[in-house]
């Protein structure tokens, strides 16, 4: 039943996404601008990593796409609460977990699709990376968006207005971006900043993804990155499910 319901909810929201193709491309705008106008600044700089500056920047941009995109996924929950759609579905026997999963899997699909487009654009800019590493990268984007999407929807169930939701998400996403070394590697940072950034879970994903893009798959970075990504996803979906089960209060 969970599978049936999740597929049903997923289908409903995916059709919704496909109806607004323009919105699908808009989500790509921010990372694409970074790629075009920020990427070229890095090509000649000593960044300390292996491989080209693109192999360092593109993993960061992929996770940025996931971070900013999925964190705002809850907006659709707020809209649907206002329309009464969510409540109408909650009166049916549909699985509560499916109401969350169908939604976040749609988000993951959309963001992985956007990630593919971003990588293609990066290839035209000069990115060269092993295919396996690129595919691993999509896996990380998928996991990150499922995690952040679940948390975002959970928070959205508890707040009533977009006005209180937006600033809250902004207050969390920007420090996450800066402290995880998305744009430039934390190896360039002074000691205190490097230490601080280790408390930011996203940092481990960034490190793992950069390793994947230079073809190093058996590293500590990769192990920690995978553990953090999977652990975070389990935690986030658990929290999201709890909130979706009990919501209404």
């Amino acid at each position, binding site marked *: *039943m969970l599978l*049936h*319901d999740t597929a*049903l909810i997923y289908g*409903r929201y995916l*059709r*919704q996404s496909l*109806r607004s193709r323009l919105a699908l491309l808009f989500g790509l705008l921010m990372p694409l601008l970074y790629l075009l106008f920020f990427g070229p600044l890095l090509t000649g700089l000593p960044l300390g990593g292996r491989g080209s500056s693109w192999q360092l920047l593109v993993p960061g941009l992929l996770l940025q796409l996931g971070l900013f995109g999925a964190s705002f996924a809850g907006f659709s929950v707020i809209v*649907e609460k*206002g*329309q*009464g*759609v969510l*409540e*109408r*579905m*909650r*009166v*049916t*026997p*549909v699985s509560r977990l499916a109401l969350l999963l169908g939604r976040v899997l749609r988000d993951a699909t959309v963001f992985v699709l956007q990630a593919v487009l971003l990588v293609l654009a990066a290839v035209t800019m000069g990115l060269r990376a092993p295919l396996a590493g690129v595919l691993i990268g999509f896996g990380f984007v998928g996991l990150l968006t499922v995690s952040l999407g679940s948390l975002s929807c959970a928070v959205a169930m508890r707040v009533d207005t977009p006005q209180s939701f937006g600033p809250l998400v902004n207050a969390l996403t920007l420090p996450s971006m800066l402290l995880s070394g998305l744009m430039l590697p934390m190896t360039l940072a002074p000691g205190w900043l490097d230490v601080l950034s280790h408390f930011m879970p996203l940092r481990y994903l960034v490190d793992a993804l950069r390793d994947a893009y230079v073809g190093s798959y058996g590293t500590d970075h990769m192990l920690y990155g995978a553990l953090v990504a999977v652990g975070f996803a389990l935690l986030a979906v658990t929290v999201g499910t709890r909130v979706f089960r*009990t919501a*209404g*209060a």
Partner: protein
Amino acid sequence: MAVISAAGLARTFQTKRGPVEAVRCVDLTVREGEILGLLGPNGAGKTTTLRMLTTLLKPTGGAATVAGHDLTTDAAGVRRSCGYVAQSGGVDPQISVREELVTQGRLYRLTRAQASERAEELARELGLTELLDRRCGSLSGGQRRRLDIAMALTHRPKVLFLDEPTTGLDPGSRADLWDLVRGLRDRHGTTVVLTTHYLDEADALADRLVIVDRGVVAAEGTPSALKLRYGGSIDASLQDAFLAITGRGPAPADTAPVAV
């Protein structure tokens, strides 16, 4: 035979300014095939009561059964046997009428073929056939209401809960909706519980009224019994009876939330 029975149903919300007792103690018995009108000032606890009876909110006190299913131990059973139309309705304005109806059928675990057949059937019954391929957002207020009700009837529920179904409708659409509700009861034996602020509606449509005030049942009976008892004569208006029962005008005098 009672299709809904509630005893001491209560719900307290924990807010930043302390607990709010939206529903303090509601006892309710609804017979099968009855049209019951739930009246009360804003904030009296009508919507909260409906949301508890439809499993959207867990009661903090009391117990109830709906169509033989216990509210707390068999929420799935309650969901299978009741339909609910919230004040706001519940369709996505971007989606077509057909898609919403079919998806709703699938949420009630119909197969794809059954769901599209049921969508056609509901559209015929509620006069939506011509509108099936329109976007929900393009429907008029009365058409939207009929769609909301069609969605809630997907699984042929024994009990239908309607929260202020005619608010915002023009007089013609209101009359249509009354006929629709009566027709449901007459043809399918559906029990209907509806809230309303329109006393003429309650008078014309409901077999029996329950007046809720400050989270408790203040009075109940047939419209004429209430007029006789609280309005002084059978010719009194329901308005007189209502004001006598609630002891004030329809405007809220306390600060309980309108709908939580």
